[in-house]
């Protein structure tokens, strides 16, 4: 049994392995990108660097969902909304950084506002030209929305499928709202044409590398944070709420507070993932709120394996790599593949990839050790 503090969560074996593999892969990619010339076989292109950064943002998002779904049993089908809100907050900052380099050359108004004949900046666009303020928004907006939404939902004891449906409705409603030009977030074109972040050009290779490293660090910190949460007594209560909520209530826990706590933390993590994602892909539009995105996210976690944390990360990377390859080969079939994958995983691997490996690990280990035994005995002979 673990009684985690932040320190033990940082130093335990799983966290060390996870962070080790994550940083080793990141470092390798960065070194191959920086040291080898473009025509070398060992060169990693900037495209791949950005792709990796994107995957890590998805992994962070999946981690956030695993915290609420895997551990607390709240199947949120609207987690993409928090991701997109974090992304929009970052997008607003990046828009203001463009300054007079936009198409219309207006020093304060972003291009789409000039195009819509707006005369001045809406009040909610003030302040986002400061990075610290944008960073605050990235944490606060998804967190606050999750807090209010969760407070209403959990207090009224909305659970199970009904909760999933209203989270789905939440993200759909936000998508429709953000499609409107009047809302002041660029309508269906969203925010794009970003130039630089904290003074670094987004087109520069070094910035892309920096963003990849930032994503890796964010994922590592979030992983340790989640390990800490799930290993603490709070984590055990949350698991108890998932398995026997009414019992937890009769033991004296305000289960709605615990759910709200986890839901809000998870939304904040999702917002951070979105904020790191936007400068790497260079655009944020209302499509990110689409219910389909949130459902895809659930598939990543299901494929990787719930309630393990690293399973969600693996799932996100594997499925997205598959998507990258698959959409290159036959783009129209991807949705069928995704749907099929979900069905297959649910029917044949309810514990996901990590579950399959864990179940077969003793057998695998036995076979491996037998092989090495044979080799050593052969060597002796």
């Amino acid at each position, binding site marked *: 049994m673990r009684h985690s503090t932040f320190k033990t969560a940082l130093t335990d074996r799983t966290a060390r392995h996870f962070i080790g593999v994550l940083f080793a892969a990141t470092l390798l990619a960065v070194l191959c990108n920086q040291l080898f010339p473009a025509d070398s076989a060992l060169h990693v292109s900037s495209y791949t660097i950005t792709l990796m950064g994107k995957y890590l943002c998805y992994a962070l998002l999946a981690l956030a969902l695993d915290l609420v779904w895997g551990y607390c049993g709240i199947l949120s089908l609207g987690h993409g909304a928090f991701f997109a809100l974090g992304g929009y907050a970052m997008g607003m900052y990046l828009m203001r950084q463009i300054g007079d380099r936009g198409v219309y050359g207006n020093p304060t108004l972003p291009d789409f506002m000039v195009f819509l004949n707006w005369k001045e900046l809406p009040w909610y666009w003030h302040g986002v030209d400061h990075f610290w303020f944008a960073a605050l928004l990235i944490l606060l907006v998804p967190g606050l929305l999750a807090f209010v939404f969760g407070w209403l939902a959990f207090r009224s004891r909305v659970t199970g499928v009904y909760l999933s449906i209203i989270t789905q409705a939440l993200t759909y409603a936000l998508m429709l709202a953000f499609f409107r030009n009047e809302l002041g977030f660029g309508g269906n074109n969203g925010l794009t044409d970003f130039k630089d972040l904290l003074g670094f050009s987004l087109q520069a290779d070094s910035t892309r590398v920096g963003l990849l490293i930032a994503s890796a660090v964010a994922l590592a910190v979030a992983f340790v944070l989640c390990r800490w949460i799930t290993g603490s007594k709070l984590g055990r209560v949350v698991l108890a709420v998932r*398995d026997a909520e009414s019992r937890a209530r009769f033991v004296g*826990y305000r289960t709605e507070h*615990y759910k709200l706590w986890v839901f809000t933390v998870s939304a904040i993590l999702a917002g951070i993932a979105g904020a790191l994602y936007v400068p790497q892909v260079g655009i944020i539009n209302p499509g990110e709120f689409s219910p389909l995105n949130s459902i895809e996210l659930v598939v990543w976690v299901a494929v990787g394996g719930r309630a393990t944390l690293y399973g969600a990360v693996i799932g996100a990377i594997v499925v997205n790599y598959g998507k990258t390859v698959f959409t290159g080969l036959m783009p129209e079939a991807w949705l069928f593949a995704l749907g099929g994958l979900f069905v297959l995983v649910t029917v044949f691997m309810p514990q996901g990839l990590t579950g399959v490996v864990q179940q077969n690990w003793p057998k695998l280990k036995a076979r491996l050790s037998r092989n090495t035994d044979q080799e050593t005995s052969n060597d002796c002979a």
Partner: protein
Amino acid sequence: MTALDSLRETFRRDQVFDFMRQGTRPVLPGQVDAGKNILYLEDITVSFDGFKALNDLTLYIKTGELRCIIGPNGAGKSTMMDVITGKTRPDSGTCFFGQTLDLTRMSETDIATAGIGRKFQKPTVFPEHTAFENLELAMNAPKGAWHSLFSQLSGEQRDWIEQTLATVGLLDDRDKVAGLLSHGQKQWLEIGMVLMQKPQLLLVDEPIAGMTRQEVERTGELLKSLAGEHSVVVVEHDMEFIRSIASTVTVLHQGSVLAEGTMQQVQNDPKVIEVYLGE
């Protein structure tokens, strides 16, 4: 109701305002002010779609007593437990824990924290947690989310959990996942969890279902040893078991009390015989 009526209702001369009453009885929130009786159920009626599960039930539990409640199926035993623990709200009637805590207005969590522990009919433990963790979660300790994040078990708490594990005979299975325990062990684990809450009133719903003979005996002894320090209410079907533990027995029938007294008295009561054996 007209405005005048509601004004009169507000200023009734035979009653004082709630805030004034609290001034005369200095009771800390959540603290039970138990006198002779610990639980007062008066004129409780609960109906589901017209069916009266409880019908003007009036029942008092003395402080420190071990009370057995029997009755045929559908007599309202479990509904009564639900009303006490806040799971079901009565249509009418009052339900007080001690002199001051109105249970009909408190949430399940508040009632549990105030000192009423409940063992369900179907054993409900946390299946993915070990026996030790089950008790840890049930422990009488601050239950806030932030507090839980930083909380670490102290040595005393660990000892206390181990003591309780020994009391319910699960010391050897402390690290076993609760879902894998046998039915009887789960029942005991749940009793242990209720004990960890340090309740003043224990509600125990069918504690010996699925237990072997020895286990039944030990459970009886355990329940008897708890009375005195705690008040215990046991709902059971097994007459022999009740005879072995009970001092006072209450018979419920169609949602109200049919008879009350010692086992001897109750068994010889003609109304009880009629209900149990038919005419």
